[in-house]
């Protein structure tokens, strides 16, 4: 069924389709419509389960962790400051190996105060052990929630779906809502091999000796590494059932490209148009969309960018003192490539500023004109 809806409501639809029995959340702009929609459905009985209106995001995540350990599927949604407040519990979620799924609507980090799109909030949580997916539009957000459950529940690591404030969260687009029965077949009821048991009370997070701690961390790393394989498999299966797939990364017009533009999130859709125009002007420009940030799809990226002369990474985020974060990771991934392409970091769209096709054209031409390496990020902003 096709419906005209916002990215937020697409996420809520996905949660409903996944029959998540425990939702714990705290409202925050621009995520609130997800919370409101789920609340509405809880009240009307459209979703069966409990919606916990916790006193903070920290408690929301704590609730999800505890509920997940009893063997149920859980969901939360947040944004920006809310995600930052969850930070401690994010580590706990990964450390406790709970397959919690969260939607984070990318909103700038204060101060100054603002509500606009910026990926710094979720990227700041990159070391917490969560799977991270960045979505281009509402349809992808909906599909990614379903995929995320399927991946997380096999790997036992939590997963975060990131969608940008307003550009995805509030833009209305036609969204295909999958059939409930098909989703039920694709995503069977959750069945953890072990769960909290009232009959056999246990205590999680006991003190462990250093050596054991290191082993547990290593196990989590190994599990995270296996996500690439599982995610590819799940996406393949999803395409077979629902007719849509996204891959871990998506190369667009890359075969003959000399210059590759790399994007994540909503800028990708704009870049799809921009490269077509650049090609008409005679520039051999391609596009690489990075969908998974954690685990970082190193091998797939190396393969997709092999032989390219110049790479222009557009980041709607900036790590102060470091630069665009996707670019940092990408440079690290390509450090051993034999042909040493020039990798340019462009910081654009920060704080919700508009990244138009013209901005992308400007970035592409800037990269084409350059003849040598640039270490620092190049900021694309109003003079």
């Amino acid at each position, binding site marked *: 069924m096709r419906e005209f809806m916002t990215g937020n409501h697409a996420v809520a639809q996905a949660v409903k389709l996944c029959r998540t029995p425990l939702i714990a959340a705290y409202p925050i702009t621009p995520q609130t419509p997800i919370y409101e929609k789920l609340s509405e459905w809880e009240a009307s009985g459209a979703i069966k389960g409990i919606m916990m209106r916790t006193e903070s995001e920290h408690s929301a995540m704590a609730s999800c962790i505890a509920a997940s350990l009893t063997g149920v599927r859980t969901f939360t949604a947040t944004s920006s400051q809310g995600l930052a407040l969850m930070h401690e519990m994010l580590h706990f979620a990964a450390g406790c*190996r709970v397959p919690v799924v969260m939607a984070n609507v990318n909103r700038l980090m204060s101060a100054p105060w603002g509500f606009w799109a910026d990926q710094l909030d979720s990227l700041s949580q990159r070391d917490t052990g969560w799977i991270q997916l960045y979505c281009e539009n509402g349809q992808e957000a909906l599909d990614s929630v379903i995929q995320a459950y399927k991946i997380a529940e096999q*790997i036992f690591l939590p997963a975060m779906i990131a969608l940008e404030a307003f550009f995805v969260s509030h833009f209305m687009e036609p969204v295909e809502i999958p059939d409930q029965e098909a989703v039920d077949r694709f995503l069977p009821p959750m069945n953890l091999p072990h*769960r909290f048991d009232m009959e056999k009370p246990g205590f999680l997070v006991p003190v462990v000796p250093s050596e054991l701690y290191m082993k547990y961390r290593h196990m989590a790393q190994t599990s995270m590494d*296996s996500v690439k394989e599982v995610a590819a498999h799940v996406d393949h299966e999803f395409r077979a059932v629902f007719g849509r797939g996204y891959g871990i990364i998506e190369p667009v017009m890359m075969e003959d490209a000399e210059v590759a533009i790399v994007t994540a999130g909503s800028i990708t859709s704009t870049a799809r148009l921009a490269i077509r125009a650049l090609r008409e002007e005679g520039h051999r420009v391609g596009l690489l969309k990075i969908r998974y940030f954690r685990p970082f799809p190193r091998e797939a990226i190396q393969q997709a960018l092999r032989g390219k002369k110049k790479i222009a990474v557009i980041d709607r985020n900036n790590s102060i003192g470091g630069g665009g974060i996707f670019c940092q990771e990408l440079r690290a991934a390509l450090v051993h490539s034999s042909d040493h392409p020039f990798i340019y970091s462009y910081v654009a769209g920060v704080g919700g500023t508009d990244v138009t096709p013209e901005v992308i054209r400007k970035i592409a031409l800037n990269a084409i004109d350059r003849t040598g390496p640039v270490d620092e990020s190049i900021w694309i902003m109003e003079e």
Partner: protein
Amino acid sequence: MKVYAESFELVIPISYESTEVIETGKWGFQKPEPIVMAAPCEEACPAGNPIARFSYLAGDGQYKAALETILKENPFPGVCSRVCFHPCESVCNRNQYDEAVSVNALERHVFDATVDLSPKLNPAPNNDPKKIAIVGAGPAGLSCAYFLALLGHRATLFEARQEPGGVLRWGIPEYRLPKRVLKKEIKRILELGIEMKTGVAVGKDISMEALSRFDALFLSPGAGMSLPLGVEGEDLTKVWKGTDFLNRVNSGERVRPGKEVIVIGGGNTAMDVARSARRLGSSVTVAYRRTKKEMPAIADEIEETEQEGVRFEFLVQPVEIRLLKNRKIRVKFQRMKLRKTSQKERPRPIAIKGSFVMMEADRLITAVGEGVDISWIPQDLSEKGFIKSVPSFVPDGRKIFAGGDAVDQQRSVVTAISSGKRAAISIDLAFRGHDPEEVFSKIRIGSKETLSMEAYLNGREMGNWGEPKGVVVYDQINTLFFKPSERMITGRIDPGKALKGFSEVHTGFSSEGARLSALRCFSCGTCNYCYNCYFFCPEGIVSFDFVNRTRKVDLDHCKGCGACSRACPRHVIEMRLIS
């Protein structure tokens, strides 16, 4: 679906052992200590009424337990809650927040709600019971007998009148204190096994010497003699003594004071006389030599007296009363003015030379104070018209004590009750050979004179009394946990209706009014199981036992964070450094 982690236990450690073995309590340097503090109201109440505790029980609807709690310290909740000047309310910590708790009215509801129940009184065991004679069965004598009985002694009351009660029976009118209330309370006291000899006047029907067969003696004959005005014409039959008038009214006699009545005085007796005369159809004027501000009567009494249509003439003092030919009297009043003396003392009235005012009336009733009949008291026991007060003397081995209005102390029912309690403890201590002053300093509530019977009983067996309870000050109340609320007031019958008879003026609380009033109590220094410490304890180691009314902290696992102490609204938990 392929599961990539074969066993959950492999990817995350779970312990099935309790972490209780880790004594996290050893990490702390301070521990919460439950403390029991007194509320300012309890310190101010001469009877030492455990107000915070009974309020908590009343708020919880446990009226019988509330009554039993009061009865540990005061045998007269029904009486006090009707006639007391309630000093408790003026010191209520809630005054500094919004308005005082209606303690007096709440106590009345506790009495009214339990009027058909039999509270359980538990006299303490006593292997060596003594026999004590008590002269005068007013509030002081009855209280002394009551507490002696609770201490396991055998008291015998000698009452000159045909019924016990003293001023409560013969002085205070029915509309303030219904006789059924008094009867109920006296019955409860006497049921403790106290012998009551009515119609026996000591010094007339039985001599003082005859009482020496008792192990101790308590003298509480009261002050029943109206003091004379000392003016010409006072002997006229048109002039009545206030106490005689009230006595006749309270005896059920049909008294007709006349159409126009002048009452001289500004105390509670004057108010009782004026209001009684109004009820007997008189038009009444109260003449007082100071102003309204200096009147010793309870403020509420003055207000109600005014509401009942009694006129007030201030700054006048009678100097002459004359009988007129038309059988009326003419009273000549000297006009007065006030001169301030010191901050502490009341301003002194001084005659304005040559300024007089005349008033005509059918009757003049005096109520300028009451004296003690000490004609039958051995000289060495009296001083300046009073009986020497307890516990100042135990002359030549005779254990003689005194209290109530017959000794030089504040004249109020609750003070009389207090002196009865003090005497009972003094008598018990005299038999046990303890110095009463030393013990009193330990069983006081706060720093005032009020004694706690509970504190006395706690140390009585071993002869070791702890330190007196401190008093919670307003700053120690965590007011964040209280909402501002209005003071609950009780109903009164319409003044017009009130004057038609001697029905009780105050109608008391509804049960909801009482409940809301009780819930307003800060419960200063007394745990009322509000759960704050339980909820705020981050370790979850505070537990309550509701059956035995105890709160426990698992100190082996208390890190001493102090959250419970901070969150306690009523200052019953104090953090103490571990030495």
